[in-house]
């Protein structure tokens, strides 16, 4: 813990720089530092507690709570849509539990809290970001391509047929950051899990294996989540009679 306190010197440097340069970030940095400390310490104690209990149902409850928080965060990107929280939560939950379930089913990860919770945490975090991006992009694509969508509707397309290009563009845009990360990982970026394992004394090759599993899981979960949210949300922009709702 002394190390952590010493590392606060770096925060002090950041605050001083902000003050000298008039960036007006001091309050945000201090508040963020305190929040990060409190949140991480709390989750540290909670994880210790859950790991010691060895009860899977508690792990499941924790994952559901994490998915709900992810759903709440992502749904803020579509404030005008009804049912956004439920949709975002379902999409993130589907991406997370489908990929996690597959990895467990294939025997790649053990059903132990120390594996399930960190992996699910990373997956939910990524799926949340991807869903937020997909939601924002879906709206902007629908606005800018309303003429194209209505031209398709006027030719007798259903709303899902008319919005096909819009959905594709939104999901592709949402996946870009993750796909780019896949391309540069190991070349100019060392991912967090791998770095952490190496720092904790693991063999680099073992760390790489775990990191690869994590990357593949993140990609699959993010794609399932963003595609699900796009397909579920797009229905909200059309009436039952395949009319584009004024945005």
């Amino acid at each position: 813990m002394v190390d952590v306190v010493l590392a606060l010197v770096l925060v002090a440097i950041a605050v001083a720089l902000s003050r000298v340069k008039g960036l007006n970030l001091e309050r945000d940095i201090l508040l963020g530092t305190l929040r990060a400390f409190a949140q991480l310490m709390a989750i540290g104690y909670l994880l210790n507690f859950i790991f010691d209990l060895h009860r899977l149902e508690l792990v499941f409850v924790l994952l559901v709570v994490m998915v709900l928080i992810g759903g709440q965060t992502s749904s803020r990107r579509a404030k005008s849509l009804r049912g956004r929280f439920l949709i975002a939560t379902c999409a993130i939950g589907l991406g997370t539990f489908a990929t996690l379930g597959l990895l467990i089913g294939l025997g790649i990860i053990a059903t132990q809290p120390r594996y399930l919770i960190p992996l699910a945490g990373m997956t939910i975090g990524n799926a949340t970001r991807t869903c937020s991006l997909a939601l924002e992009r879906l709206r902007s694509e629908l606005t800018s391509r309303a003429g194209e969508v209505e031209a398709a509707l006027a030719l007798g397309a259903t709303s899902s047929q008319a919005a096909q290009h819009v959905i594709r563009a939104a999901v592709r845009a949402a996946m870009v950051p993750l796909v780019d990360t896949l391309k540069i990982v190991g070349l100019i970026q060392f991912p967090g899990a791998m770095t952490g394992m190496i720092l904790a004394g693991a063999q680099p090759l073992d760390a790489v294996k775990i990191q690869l599993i994590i990357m593949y899981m993140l990609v699959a979960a993010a794609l399932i989540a963003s595609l699900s949210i796009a397909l579920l949300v797009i229905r909200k922009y059309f009436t039952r009679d395949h009319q584009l709702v004024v945005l």
Partner: protein
Amino acid sequence: MTRELPVSFCLSASTRTDMPMRIVFEGVGKTRKYYDSQNSLWRQQVVLRDLTFQVEDAEVFTILGPSGAGKSTLLRLVNRLEDPSQGHIMLDGHLASSIDVIALRRDVGMVFQLPAFFPGTVRENVIYGPKLHGTKTGLDGLAETCLAAVGLSPDLLGRRTQDLSVGQQQRVCLARALANGPAILLLDEPTSALDLSATLAMERLIARLAVERRLTVLFVSHDLEQVRRVGQRTMLLIDGHMVELSETEALFTQPQSDLTRRFCAGLWKEEKHG
């Protein structure tokens, strides 16, 4: 709930072109909600007010009016891109709202003011409608026929739509609408982005197609001269009100209302803003 379709909405594309249709508007009104961000509240805007009239089979009917009169909204009610807030529309004797909306839109083609295309070539755009509805064979022939019908060379089929001139693009939009074999054609200021010679060519083309294919055409325009050239009958629409409806020539030579006389003389705008 499964809806029973009227006969004309079940015919194949090839035979449907012989089936003109009468459009009846009965007390049609339209209001829209919009957000007043200055006062942070939702308001209602009346776009169309109590319109009762009919468009005859195989007629070229023009809707004349200034910008914001509700002309485009009127067209969008016919193919149900929007629904009326009051009253109803009958197509060929059937309530538009009771017809399966996909079947209805196959029979009611529309060309918008600004060309909007799907990613891909001219061919892919022209056959978009028939492909949606399950046509798998003869698509190349259909694309060529439709392109020829609007006076474009089949050499354009492989071209990307963005590489065409605006005049060509608008013709491709017309070909795309014709590929579904519609009985009604809705044209929302289709020449507003064209120069005079392209406009005149487009007008001649529409007149020819209306006769050859026995199409019922609703043509929206704010251009007095164009309406005079194109329309058999014309409705003057201002602020959502039907000011006058008559034979097009009579509208200009024997207007029944003072507002029509002033509008046709080009004085309405000055009066409005002056």
